[in-house]
């Protein structure tokens, strides 16, 4: 199983801060398409992915137990 984390506006759009999903073997890009379909009101503009707390590119393949976070444009400071 994998864990998918949502923050800020994505948390509001999905109505949850995390969910368990089995997405090992998919690329992050495939996961993104999947999620966009599932949550049609989710804004993906500028969203980056992190795998196990490190930024990762869309072609990275998800492994078992990876924690995936959707990182909308940050605005700290």
């Amino acid at each position, binding site marked *: 199983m994998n864990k998918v984390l949502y*923050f800020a506006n994505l948390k509001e759009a999905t109505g949850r801060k995390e969910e368990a999903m089995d997405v090992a073997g998919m690329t992050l890009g495939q996961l993104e398409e999947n999620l966009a379909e599932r949550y049609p009101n989710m*804004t993906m503009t500028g969203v980056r992915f*992190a795998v196990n*707390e490190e930024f990762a590119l869309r072609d990275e393949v998800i492994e078992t137990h990876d924690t995936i976070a959707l990182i*909308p444009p940050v*605005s*700290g*400071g």
Partner: protein
Amino acid sequence: MKRFEVVTEPIDPERYREYVVRPEAGGVTVFTGHVREWTKGIRTVYLSFEAYTSMAEKMMEQIGREIEEKWPETRVAMAHRIGELHISDIAVVIAVSSPHRKAAYEANEYAIERLKEDVPIWKKEHWENGEYWVGHQNQKPKGEDINE
């Protein structure tokens, strides 16, 4: 206290200054980012910050390593507060010490710029007539003129 941390309590900048002071440091810069009342004509009532805390602290550590590589004799500490913050509250503190002051200024400014790019922390502005997650233009309240 950690050198790079996300906190929920008010930030005391002196603790971070003290963390970086050492006998070979001739200059220390401490930057604090405060909640501003007016941003581009809109009055903020309060802000709320949310973080992906574990990753945010890792990213701050990474920025610290970048700095100590670029400006080898500096030492860095930084913290970001999350939760509900009011006008003039400190949201972020960055302390940099260096034998010579030039590096202390440059490295500090680098740190805040990198933090704003890559540290997973999000700000929600709360106004009298609405709220929005900064960085998400489509969620701005209608009828307002923000020129970000």
